[in-house]
């Protein structure tokens, strides 16, 4: 299951979508909006996605993970729109027969997602805003 959503992410739903009877281990990563970045107070964030391509790039990441690890289930949800500190931006849940693989596969998926999936984050401070990682 891959989801790009404007609504609050329901963690329990994502975990359940990844879980099956063969799943001995389920690893879940939750990325929350932090209230500061490099010591500067964050007022809110805005996420934007190139949605159809984001979905297909997440699928590519999952396919690559499936070549390395036996995934018995998985689910990825990414929020878009305006988010406040403390809100959930992304959830990745991965199920595997054994625990070590669940950690490795989940970390691979979130790391890859951050590198290749066309989603952008703008941080709003009290005195301005910026697109994250845009400039050196």
């Amino acid at each position, binding site marked *: 299951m891959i989801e790009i959503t404007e609504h609050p992410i329901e963690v329990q739903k994502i975990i359940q979508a990844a879980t099956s009877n063969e799943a001995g281990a389920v690893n879940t990563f939750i*990325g929350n909006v932090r209230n500061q970045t490099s010591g500067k107070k964050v007022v809110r964030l805005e*996420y*934007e*996605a*190139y949605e*159809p*391509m*984001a979905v*297909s790039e997440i699928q590519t990441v999952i396919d690559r993970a499936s070549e390395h690890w036996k995934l018995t289930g998985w689910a990825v949800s*990414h929020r878009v729109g305006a988010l406040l500190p403390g809100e959930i*931006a*992304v959830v990745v849940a991965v199920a595997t027969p054994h625990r070590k693989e669940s950690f490795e596969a989940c970390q691979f998926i*979130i790391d890859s*997602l*951050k*590198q*290749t*999936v*066309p*989603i*952008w*984050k*703008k941080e709003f401070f009290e005195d301005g805003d910026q*697109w*994250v*990682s*845009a*400039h*050196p």
Partner: protein
Amino acid sequence: MILKIKTFGISRDILGGREVELDMNGTSVGDLRKSLSMRYPQLDKLNSLFIAVNQEYAPDEKVLTAADEIALIPPVSGG
């Protein structure tokens, strides 16, 4: 060739719209990069800029047609 270009993130601020028409010289993704760079020099200051064609990352050699869905992919920052 006149192309419609979708913009995201900071590339939207630089090009000034969600979808921008550009009259480019040449036919490849590499040629498009040159035309964009001439018209919007601020794009050169980004950490990276990929071009997606029909929702896939495209190499500079790829030849474009006016029917392709073309999008600018500035540095991503999801997660």
